[in-house]
């Protein structure tokens, strides 16, 4: 009788299993989703970081969009330089748009020295929360809060907190300009700007929209909106709105005249060769211009 139970159980379960297999087979046949095999091939070529820098949900999302659109207009993976897009273009027989490589820059220079702390923050280490609680340790309501939301959100380890200045610092080689930090910053202090020739770039490292005197009260390197840079710029690249200068990187020819006249040093120049002594500045500028 013991055998009987075993046999019955085997037969019953076996039948159920077989029946289910048959049903599943037909369902799989009938409802099969036709997917372009190209999508997987394109996705293979993408870096697979799923950073969202392209504006699509992950690398697969971008691959789908590329295959569906059939062209590469406006679709770009910022994460791995132009080589990725060239590879994809080669695979699909298209031409990739030439895109200027970008990098994230911090538009604040309120270091411990230039913007000394007036209060002390001791709560959850999140910029989003600190932003709801107070204007910031220095008192500047536009400046960096220094809690590092941009650092935690960066998937490429391209930002770290400088322990001396207490400001996030972007590592040039690692930043792929995916824009995650731009979205994470509650005060949108980070901006994606053109990397520039040999990494040379120039920007206003301040976001303060207050009158000069008020801004300077909290921070010695604030942009005071004096418009000196606007007057000196030969390319009309600089505008001043709400007492804050902004350099348009598409118009800027990197002549560095603005940085020279800025009374507070709010305009930062990066990766430029060191300036020659003062007497020769005019020559340097003219040679720079001819270069541009």
């Amino acid at each position, binding site marked *: 009788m013991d055998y009987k139970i075993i046999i019955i159980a085997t037969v019953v379960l076996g039948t159920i299993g077989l029946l289910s297999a048959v049903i599943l087979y037909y369902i799989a046949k009938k409802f099969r989703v036709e997917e372009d095999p190209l999508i997987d091939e394109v996705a293979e070529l993408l870096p697979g970081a799923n950073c969202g820098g392209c504006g699509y949900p992950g690398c697969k999302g971008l691959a789908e969009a590329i295959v569906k659109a059939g062209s590469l207009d406006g679709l770009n993976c910022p994460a791995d330089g132009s080589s990725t897009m060239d590879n994809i273009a080669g695979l699909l027989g298209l031409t990739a748009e030439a895109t200027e490589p970008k990098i994230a820059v911090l538009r604040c220079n309120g270091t411990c020295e230039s913007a000394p702390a*007036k209060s002390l923050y001791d709560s959850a280490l999140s910029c989003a929360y600190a932003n709801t609680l107070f*204007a910031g340790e220095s008192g500047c309501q536009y400046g960096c809060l220094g809690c590092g939301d941009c650092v935690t959100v960066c998937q490429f380890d391209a930002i770290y907190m400088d322990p001396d200045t207490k400001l996030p610092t972007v590592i040039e080689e690692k930043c792929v300009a995916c824009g995650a930090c731009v979205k994470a910053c509650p005060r949108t202090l980070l901006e994606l700007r053109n990397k520039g020739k040999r990494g040379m770039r120039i920007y206003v490292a301040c976001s303060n929209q207050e009158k000069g005197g008020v801004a300077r009260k909290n921070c010695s390197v604030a942009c005071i909106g004096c418009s000196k840079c606007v007057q000196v710029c030969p390319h009309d690249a600089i505008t001043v709105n709400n007492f804050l200068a902004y350099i348009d990187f598409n118009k800027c020819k990197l002549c560095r005249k603005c940085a020279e006249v800025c009374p507070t040093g709010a305009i930062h120049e990066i990766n430029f060769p060191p300036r020659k002594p003062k007497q020769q500045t005019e020559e340097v500028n003219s040679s720079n211009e001819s270069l541009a």
Partner: protein
Amino acid sequence: MNHLLEMKRMKTFKIGGIHPEDNKLSKGVEVEVFPLPKQATLFVNQNLGAPSTPVVQKGDHVKVGQLIAKAEGFIGANIHSPYSGTVTKIDPVSDFMGYKRTAIEIAVEGDEWMEHIDTTPELKKEITLSKSEIIDKIKECGIVGLGGACFPTHVKYMIPENKKVDYLIINAVECEPYITTDHRMMLEKAEECLVGIEALLIASGAPVALIGIENNKPDAIAHLQELIKDYPKIQVHPLKTKYPQGAEKQLIHALTNRVVPSGKLPIEVGVIVNNITTCYAVYEAIQKNKPLIETHLTVSGKSLENRKNLRVRLGTPLREILDYVGIPEDTGKVISGGPMMGKAIANLDTFAVKGMSSILFMNEKESKRGETINCIRCGKCVLGCPMRLEPYLLAPLVEKKDYEACEANGILDCIECGSCSYNCPAFRPLLDLIRVGKSRTTAMIRSRKS
């Protein structure tokens, strides 16, 4: 024995709650009128909802009680000048968080009041106004909830047609440690408060008003019980001391055993809740034509010797108050509002606003947070939570940015009482994270709707 039995019979809310040290150090100090400042600044957003629009210009001469900023939108409140003098500036000024907000600056000259305001201290018991007139008066005088939230009072009395008010609840719980302004109000201005409650009874149409007072204020309970003999519609209910009893939903549960559904207002269960100090402001508005131009402040702290209960005109520079009492040397943090729900003041060069109920000095030891260590799932935060939430679960969800799960776990029900953070033996910033989650979840829901 009798006393113990009575304690047992005393009402309170059932779920969660904590017992922080009540530290009512200034309960014996009489309310003092703070002298007028020379220069005062009034922010135009002193209430929950939309900021008001200034109706005066630079150079205008104003009198005490004159309208200087008009309410905007449905949830808004008028602002009146607490001073006579000249408007010198309308400019952005740093508030207590350090953010710049539009403010009206007045150079004070003398103390000249508007003619229609009755400045005599006499008690006027008889209410001659009708229901709609009372509500209009409350709206006109810019009265907001003085328990701390600053919700415009008249909005509460715009009752939907299908709803009926069964109870008017008067919140005299004052469950936050240190603060004693409501307590002093009940001892010094009890009759005025009761007349204010009578007016609110007319405005709401409720048959009965229940005053909830915690039993750590026996003198106030006795005083009011003596006085309500002349007011048949008003009852006084002593409550067992427990934090956060002063929270609207908890107080309703304690007094009426009704539970306000999630995401709904008290009117849903036929209740309106008002603070006792708001009742005093209502009395002044309807009987004396006096708009809301003052706030009552407890200035206290363990290291502070010169503890005060002050009646301060709105717009008084905080520095003057601090200089008046003298900042203790070992101050680590200055808080506006109670130690549980109040916020640290990041900028001391600011000005008194509506609903500011206290300035507390925490010494260095009190103001330091313990070192945060890992959560051991002890569940103390769950025990403390009066809203049946699980803070230990919500906080990591916020850290992972999973706001859908936050919503599903009821993060929006959180009343931000801080019981979880108070209870946590690992000093985790639970409430801080939940607050981030709340704002993010609301933003997510809003974007989903649009």
